[in-house]
């Protein structure tokens, strides 16, 4: 089979392209495929996707924010929007206000429920649980689901009792 684009070289790369819900199969030689993939990357690079997601912020605030620089690594928000990658861990704190909504759009959540680095396992896990439960409690009360609310309230109490400092408690270890 010859390449669909140049019609000269044998097709070695096989692509499926979906445009407007239409699926096209493309059979390309290595050279044309490389060109095609760089075109596709330009159109749909991950950094563009992220940039697209960040672009819903208000523009006046955005201008001010664009020049904000991370003290940890010198990356500006503008840099982040351009390259789609943050510069260091501290960037997350520096750009917190804008990253919160972005994380929400990507993951549908802004509260980590997974594991934590070894030394802080206990404390943080409970803190996160209570935070989340309080939110659930509020929602339950708002929607007048009182039975559910009572259940959540008891759960919070239980966690908080467990957390209250005991003599020789191991929270600081």
């Amino acid at each position, binding site marked *: 089979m010859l390449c669909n684009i140049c019609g000269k070289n044998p097709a*070695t790369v096989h692509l499926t392209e979906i445009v407007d819900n239409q699926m096209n199969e493309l059979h390309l030689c290595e050279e044309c495929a490389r060109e095609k993939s760089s075109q596709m990357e330009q159109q749909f690079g991950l950094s563009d996707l992220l940039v697209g997601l960040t672009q819903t912020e208000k523009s006046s605030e955005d201008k001010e924010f664009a020049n904000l620089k991370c003290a940890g*690594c010198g990356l500006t928000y503008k840099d982040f929007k351009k390259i789609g990658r943050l510069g260091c861990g501290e960037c997350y704190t520096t750009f917190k206000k804008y990253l919160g909504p972005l*994380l929400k759009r990507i993951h549908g959540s802004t509260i980590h429920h997974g594991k934590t680095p070894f030394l802080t396992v206990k404390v943080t896990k409970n803190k*996160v649980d209570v935070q989340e439960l309080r939110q659930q409690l509020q929602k339950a009360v708002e929607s007048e689901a009182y039975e559910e609310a009572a259940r959540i309230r008891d759960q919070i109490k239980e966690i908080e009792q467990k957390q209250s400092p005991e003599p020789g408690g191991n929270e600081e270890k």
Partner: protein
Amino acid sequence: MKINDLLHQTSEWLKGTGPNSDIVISSRIRLARNLQKFPFPHWANKKQNRDILDAVAQAVPAIEGLKNATLFKLSELDNIDRQFLIERHLMSYEHAQKTDFKGLIIDDEEVISIMINEEDHIRAQVMQSGFNLFEAWGILNKVDESMARELPFAFLSDWGYLTACPTNAGTGMRGSVMLHLPALIMTRQINQVLAAIAKLSFTTRGLYGEGTQAVGNFFQISNQISLGPSEKEIIENINGLIRQIIEQELQTREILMTKSKIMLEDKIYRSFGILKSAYTISSQETTELLSLVRLGVDLGMIRDITRRTVNELFILTQPAHLQKLENKKISSQERDFKRAEIIRQQLTVK
């Protein structure tokens, strides 16, 4: 361990064992981790990248499961070696580009591998044969805990582990399952399955990860969301989806066996015949035909070779593996000859 030692062993994930190994080739979990106080690799300067590599290298002896592990510096490997490691799924394609201060740690069973200075400081993965994400997680979790004792990780209590790209923040976890779905493809049901997967926030990729086309009826399915659900919930979500896909593939195989048995046998035995008799064969054709032979083994039509032999052939016939076997760089045409020769040898009943 030297890279060449790997050539003569079967990677853990290719053994063809584990739950549902008639459909699930392998299960893989990876974690993204970064060190506090260092910029992420793309934003760090050379000295910082070197310090990151050194810090992780120093921690290796204390990391669980890495007693018999080797650290390779990517800049010290040649192109064929790097391609060879990609083909064995021990590292990403991206890791083989711009190799300064990049490292790769592999344990001698090829279960655990850790990329240093890829997109994040640390990308640790565990691969298992069959449908086995929880087992992979059990191993990787221990690796992670022992790493955390040695290396201070960038972490915020509300956003979890911090990563260069916000799409990986939170757990930093990606679970992937590699599936072989020939029946769903033959009956053209696969597009419905893929559309459903996309709606559920999972991604589908080909055999070689990001940006690759599904060849030979293989698909990798993984979670997209890493912040919010716990590691256990992420795995349970993937497992739920994979179980449904397995069920559909099994049902479809059964329907094909009852309604079009002769057509199916014809396809499978022809493929087997070509592979056993070809003197030159491309990589693409090999993958497609091996996929059908694997189906034949799974359905009990082909009994004189094992699933493991077929799995091994998928990897041994890749370009860098062929060149490693020949111990030199060979042209594409020579590779096609060599590939056919190896397949003939392996498929001939001893």
